[in-house]
Structure formats: C-alpha cells, structure tokens
C-alpha cells in the first residue's frame, strides 16, 4: 500500500498574528513558521501505518514557497520516505491545491491520501473534500480513528455531538482531526537521515493546473476588540452582575 500525505507551512500556532497596516493581509515576515498542526497528525498517521507494515511507501507533498521544503524535511524526519515540492510564491486557493494534488495522485496512484482537516491560517477546511470530489474517491473527514484492510478503510469521524463510523472503499481521502494521534518529535538521527531523502521539485505549470484566483481578498482587518472589563471583588458581585447587568444567567 502506498500513502501520500499533504503538508502546509503556516504561521506557528503559538504566534500572535498581526494584521498588516495596509489591511492587505497578515504580517508573515520574520514570523516563526511550522507545519500545520493537523498536517502533523496526518504525517504521524502515515508513519504509523508505514511502521505497522500496512504501507510500503509514504510520500509527503507540499505546495508553497521554497521554505516549504523545510516542512517536507520535518515530515521526512518523522518517517516519510520521500518528498514532492510544488514550488510557488503565490497564495493558492483550496480548489487549485486540490487540482494540483489530483495530478500528483494520478501519477503516484496511492491507496490512501491523508490531509489535515484544515490549515490554521485560512481555516478553509476544503482541500481534502475537494480532492476526493475531483478524484471520485470516498472521503473520511475529521477522522479520530482509522483502521485499514486491503480494500477498505474504517473511519471514526468527529461529528457535532459525537462520533460517526463509516466504511470507505480504497483508494480514499482521509482528513485528520485532533484525536487521531499525538504526533512524535523527530529524533536527531532521523533529522540527519532526512537530509539525504529525495525531494522532487515541481512548479504548478509542470502539472498544467491553472492556479489563478477565483476569490479576491478586498481587505483584512483586526476583529472588533473587546471593551475593557471590570474586576469584581467577590462571587456575590459577579453573580449579581451576570444576572442584572449582563443578563446572561
């Protein structure tokens, strides 16, 4: 079995982001970047399947600027076998990402394609479902447990208010939710080993995909900030304020 995992380089989840003063976007210069947390979970799941012997090869793909190769190296250090980097400095919308990944899937013919459920920068939560649509594959989104046999994937999905179990024909798309696993930290020897692993370099035009924008971002602003609150002296005052001032209890 062959597995592909897609990873995105995003602003680290611990960074407090700042809106650019001209309201065109988010300040990303000199900001710590990391692998999207949901993608780390996707890599970890792939590595575990690789280690269990169910998968023979784990390929990691990323679309983005030159530095995305660092993100691919992180995945290689976690245990992926080789990387594919589709280099572009453009911000690419989920539909175009899905079209690029479809080309990769058709070339590589994986049995399973695992993606994070959403990237924590644009929060779209679309790419996996779109890729499944374009390939005509089944989809197991927001997965919190994955079990595989040779022709099916059983997926427990996080749904509002509980869990849902579905059975998918392979090949299938899986998108990861938080409870699927806890990603490992790469060990130093594995980081060294990852430097020797191969990363294939492509550009979007190699795959004949039109990546032009369908959506224009007119402006990006800070959300309306909260007015300064008050410090209450004790619980009695707190409950009184909640009842009579805020009227929420």
């Amino acid at each position: 079995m062959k597995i592909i995992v897609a990873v995105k380089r995003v602003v680290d989840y611990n960074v407090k982001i700042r809106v650019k003063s001209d309201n065109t976007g988010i300040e990303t210069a000199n900001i710590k970047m990391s692998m999207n947390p949901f993608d780390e979970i996707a890599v970890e799941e792939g590595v575990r399947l690789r280690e269990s012997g169910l998968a023979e090869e784990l390929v990691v793909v990323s679309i983005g600027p030159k530095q995305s190769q660092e993100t691919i190296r992180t995945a290689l250090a976690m245990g992926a076998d080789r990387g594919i980097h589709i280099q572009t400095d453009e911000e690419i919308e989920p539909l175009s990402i899905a079209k690029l990944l479809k080309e990769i899937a058709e070339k590589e013919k994986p049995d399973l394609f695992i993606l994070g459920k959403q990237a924590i920068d644009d929060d779209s939560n679309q790419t996996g479902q779109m890729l499944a649509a374009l390939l005509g594959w089944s989809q197991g989104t927001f997965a919190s447990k994955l079990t595989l046999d040779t022709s099916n994937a059983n997926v427990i999905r996080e749904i509002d208010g509980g869990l849902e179990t579905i059975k998918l024909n392979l090949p299938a798309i899986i998108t990861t939710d938080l409870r699927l696993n806890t990603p490992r930290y790469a060990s130093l020897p594995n980081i060294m080993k990852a430097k020797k692993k191969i990363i294939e370099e492509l550009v979007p035009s190699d795959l004949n995909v039109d990546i032009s924008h369908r959506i224009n971002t007119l402006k990006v602003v800070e959300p309306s900030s909260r007015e300064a609150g008050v410090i209450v002296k004790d619980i009695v005052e707190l409950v009184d304020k909640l009842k009579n001032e805020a009227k929420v209890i």
Partner: protein
Amino acid sequence: MSILVIAEHDGSALKGSTLNTITAAAELGDVTVLIAGGNCDTVASQAAKLAATNKILLAEDEIYSTPLAETFTPLILSIARDFSHILGPASTFGKNILPRVSALLDVQQISEIVAIHDSDTFDRPIYAGNAIATVQSKESIKVLTVRATAFEAATEVGSPAEIAKIEIVTAEKISEFISTELTKSDRPELTQAKIVVSGGRGMQNGENFIMLERVADLLGAAVGASRAAVDSGFVSNDYQVGQTGKIIAPELYIAVGISGAIQHLAGMKDSNVIVAINKDEEAPIFQVADYGLVGDLFTEIPKLEAELQK
C-alpha cells in the same frame, strides 16, 4: 437571486445551525431549502412554515437517511445550476459536503461567512478569528458555509412555502455508513451551548473538573477545557476550546484557572460575555474578560456553586 440552503436535520426537526443559515440566505434572495432524508415530512413542514423560506425541495429515500457526502453531492449537483448561491451550515455536516459539491461545480467555496455585504462579497474569519477577511467571489455559483453564531435563527412563521418532491440521484457506492455514537450527556453540546464553563491547567487534575460540572449543571451549561488541561490529561480532547479545538461563541463563557494562551483565546473570544476566575491577576485572560475575579478557584468555585443555588 435564487438561494439554495442544504438542510441538516435529525429526521424530525431542522438543526439549529440550519435555521441560522436560512436567515443568512434570506439576506441574499429567495430561499429554497433542500431536505434529503429517509422520511422527513415533519422536517419539510417545519421548514415550509418559516417566513424566510419560499420553497422546499424534498428528496426522500433510504440512501439519504445518513448524510454521506458521496450520496448527497450528486443530489445537490442535480439541482445546483438553478441557483446563484448554495449555502450550508458550517457544521461538520456542511463542512463535509459543501466542498465536494463546490469542486465538482468548479467553483471556489467561501467557508464560514460571518457577514454578507452584497451578493458576492462576504466577511469570513481567518487565523481562528484573529483577523477578518472581506472577500469577493466572481464565481457563477457562490458556494458558502455559514457560521451559525453570526446570524439569528429563522423562527418567524409565515405563509407556508410550497413543498416539491424531487428525484433521487443514485451514485456508485464507494462509502457506507456504519453507526453513530452521540455523546450521552445531559449537558448541552459544547458548540451549541448558551453557557460554557471551562477549566485550565489551574484545575490541577481531572477529578477537580467535577467542581465545574456542578456549576455547569446549575447553569444548564456545557463544560470545556483549555489545551493545557487536555495536554495534561485532565480531560479528553473533545473538551478542547481553542484554535486547534472547538471554536465557540456562547452567550456566557466562564474561564476557570485558564491563563489565556493565544491558542485558547482564539477559540472563545467571540463569546458574548466572558468571565475569568484566576489567581494570577496578570493572566492574559483578564484582557478579554468582561468580568474578572482574582482568586483561588478552589475557594471561589464552591462559593459560586452556593451562590447559584440561592
């Protein structure tokens, strides 16, 4: 403008987030609601009674009794071209299905809209709500998911809308529903609750969450937790409120022993009223709190419970 809303329901009633979505749709034009399910006459008549709906399309068949994206998508595609906008709730139901529809229409979806400027311009949160983007779509059909907390629920009753049955669309079976296991709790679900009481690392262990549960039960509230509390093993992941957990905006959010890391604030700062109880007066949570109480939670929470019982 003809607007299609993809309804989420449980077989007997529309889900709350669909009612919010209908309100958003009514801002754009005439609302048609697609209801697909096994046997959902009662859902259809509930939707038809709403003042905000103009037409109900009903697709009844066992294949729709569970909402698989692979079966719902061909059905939606069979009618999609009649509409300028297709909206669904940004629930796990809508998030699962709508992008699949959007890709096959070859249009770029806009996720989780929180405001509508005009027929092609919308606001949506990015970076877990730490920024709001105003985006404009030139797609022939706009596919949108709607953040429920940003729109009122459609409840007003008006002249009944026409209910029309539509043909089902069979698709190659590539996925199969096995089961659902809904969390059995007398408390409301975290994303739906009007009041949420959350605990952080300050709770010290999982057993102490019982204190919060008692307060929650007095308020009819859900219980949540910060990532620090989840990572420390106090409670399971599904309690997590934050950028990588659940993003919520209840009427009242009570943060107990939570310092207010960025990743947590991202998940709750749109709450209507925020209360923080923390012994560290420098804790960043106080910067977003409407009411702050500096004190030891182990003395303050029992006092809160007693006060609420009065």
